[in-house]
């Protein structure tokens, strides 16, 4: 039966292409995966596995709409596949289509009620939709089904501390606990380390967050999200240092001015010590948390964050002017202190620019 053999050969070719595409997708080589899947789809457009792999590749390449379209085609071909609906839910969530994400998640759970990944995905979708109680229940079920899976614990942490929210301290502590368990299972899980950094940043522990992000980047150097999050940590540290100096300068100028309008000698001295102290303390702690790659992260920050870099430069200029006014003779001391106002104000303006930009990007 040559014809039959030929079909078997074609089938083997398609299956092989699907495996290859899956392998490439898992390595993050979505462009190659898409090429492999597309070629095979040309010969067998009705293969749901190939459609899934092409959809995953499209998602990785930043085309969620196309990804969703392919997944709907795959779901039409194989309506009983929980996996397709789970991925569809994930893609819809990426696009912000919350109702669709929840619906697809529910379908995945109905089709495969013992699939922990389906429950985890449903939990994430519900959390984004604002149904926190159901989300926690779904994530809890996922953990019951797979207590030793890092993925389920990370899902619970995501539910307790969704992106862009400020949860209560108790939830942060629970999220941290789950991430700790995830890291026990997979000590270099980049997603868990990244989430742990988010928790520390929410608590105001920027330097500790930097340490976890450095570990996350080491575990997965190819994913840029963690490097960008490190930029956020740097910005938050610069912001805090800047506002502390800003307030100190303002208060000392208002309260401790002498009769002639000049500040007493100890004022610039205190400001200089504060400026150098804050910057030095942050740098030393960062150095301790990121012993090997601080320079690389700073270079990346300078490359990606123009406004942030300018802001940092303003902060450094302020500290230099404080020190200069502390050691300068009385005749120029007041002038230098006044000049310190310029980078402080510029820094404040840049902080608003930065906030505006990040809001627009969201």
């Amino acid at each position, binding site marked *: 039966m040559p014809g039959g053999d030929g079909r078997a050969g074609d089938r083997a070719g398609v299956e092989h292409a*699907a495996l*290859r595409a899956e392998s490439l997708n*898992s390595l993050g080589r979505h462009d190659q995966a898409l090429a492999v899947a597309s070629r095979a789809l040309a010969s067998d457009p009705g293969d749901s596995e190939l459609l899934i792999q092409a959809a995953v590749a499209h998602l990785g390449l930043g085309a969620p709409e196309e990804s969703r379209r392919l997944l709907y085609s795959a779901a039409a071909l194989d309506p009983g596949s929980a996996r397709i609906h789970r991925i569809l839910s994930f893609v819809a969530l990426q696009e912000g289509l919350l109702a669709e994400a929840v619906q697809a998640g529910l379908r995945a759970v109905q089709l495969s009620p013992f699939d922990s990944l389906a429950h985890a995905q449903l939990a994430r979708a519900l959390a984004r939709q604002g149904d926190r109680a159901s989300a926690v229940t779904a994530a809890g079920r996922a953990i019951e089904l797979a207590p030793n899976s890092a993925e389920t614990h990370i899902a619970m942490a995501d539910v307790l501390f969704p992106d862009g929210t400020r949860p209560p301290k108790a939830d942060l502590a629970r999220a941290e606990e789950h991430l700790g368990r995830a890291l026990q299972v997979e000590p270099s899980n980049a997603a868990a380390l990244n989430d742990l950094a988010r928790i520390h940043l929410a608590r105001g522990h920027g330097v500790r967050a930097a340490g976890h992000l450095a570990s996350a980047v080491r575990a997965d*150097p*190819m994913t840029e999200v963690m490097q960008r999050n490190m930029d956020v940590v740097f910005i938050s540290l610069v912001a805090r240092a800047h506002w502390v100096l800003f307030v100190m300068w303002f208060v000392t100028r208002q309260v401790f001015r002498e009769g002639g309008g000049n500040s007493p000698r100890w004022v610039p001295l205190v400001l200089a010590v504060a400026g150098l102290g804050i910057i030095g303390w942050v740098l030393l702690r960062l150095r301790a948390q990121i012993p090997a*790659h601080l320079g*690389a992260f700073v270079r990346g920050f300078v490359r990606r964050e123009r406004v942030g870099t300018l802001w940092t430069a303003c902060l450094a200029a302020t500290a230099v002017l404080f020190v200069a006014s502390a050691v300068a003779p009385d005749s120029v001391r007041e002038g230098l202190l006044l000049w310190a106002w310029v980078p402080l104000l510029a820094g404040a303006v840049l902080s608003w620019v930065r906030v505006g930009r990040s809001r627009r990007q969201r």
Partner: protein
Amino acid sequence: MSNPLIESLTRAVEAAPGDVPLRLHLAELLVAAGQQDAAITQCAVALQHEPGNVAARALMGRAMAGPDGGTSVTPPPPEGTAAPAAAAPPVGPQPTPPSDPPAYGAPAPDSSPVSFDWTMAESDVSEVAPERMFVAGGDEQATDVPAWDVERTSLTLKDVGGMSQVKDRLTAAFIAPMQNPELRKLYGKSLRGGMLLYGPPGCGKTFIGRAIAGELGAHFINVGLADVLDMYIGASERNVADIFRLARANAPVVVFLDEVDALGQKRSLTRSSGMRTTVNQLLTELDGISGQNEGVFVVGATNQPWDVDPALRRPGRLDRTLLVLPPDQPARESIFRHHLAQRPVEGIDLGWLAKSTDGFSGADIAHVCETASEKALMEGVRTGVIRMIQMKDLKAALAEVRPSTGPWFDSARNVVQFANEDGTYNELRDYMKKNRKL
């Protein structure tokens, strides 16, 4: 069609490849004997040695003009005329003015400006084209022939142009101990080993793999992912086992694992349990059982070494790594020479080309040569005047082709900066620093 004089001269030319007059004499005889293809090759080599040699160029033109003095590409007839004989010679130098009708007959009266008769040409070469391997009715994919070919390769490291650092390291770390059995025994070194070649795509990793086999006088088995992966449970593992069984039966052998990152990818990245068991099988085979792997050298090649399972790089497996970088200037010159050797060229400044292609991979250079050939060919088709590939074609091709290694270094930068604690990528880091890529 053997001619004793030609055979004798061919041997003489092989013995003295730099003797251009002798080579041209041979080419002259080949043209006279109607062996145009061989004559063109000889002329091309002569022009490699002496690009400005007028006699060589003239002879090349005659050889290209075909046995009848005609060309295989007919000049387009001027408007309103149909007979090629009346066509005015096109602008530009023409090797030999065609006095007779073109070899493939007169162009059709309604022919477009490009009037080369491809159908006729294809029918002409159909006699020499290989026949289908399988007759109709059979399944072309179903075959009893083993999926993996055990090859004998005549390539050696001498055939690898430039790259002296790579060759030195290969010799010191891998080849010299294997080639010196007495020393090897003295130092208790086993006749097995593995090496991981990594670097940007298109820089000659596979070529080096073959050269290692040639250098060791070993067989060569090239294994790609497609040879191993199988959808059915257990089939991929069986394929891996079969490959190593075949290798052991043919020892000494170099097993070249192409794209080893896909075949032996980090198990933490692998969601499919099938792939995990394939990696496990590969590890088992690499370890061998009770020294079964004596004489089996495993060379893995990858563009993404950071995706290779760390277990594959443990001692006794692919424990030595070698960075294969884009070719250096001498290597680029060699690669240009190689890719242009069989083409009709004139006035080629290989030094300039090598200097202008910093960062190009071997594949990029091949692409440049191909593009330049296309340009010369298309101009010939358009104008009807056959001409040789010149520097202007290569310069135009260079303007179009960009080095493909850039994205690879962008990816590598992240790894070198953030995931090089154990110093695995120090060599790459040093190269990137030196070339301002970091």
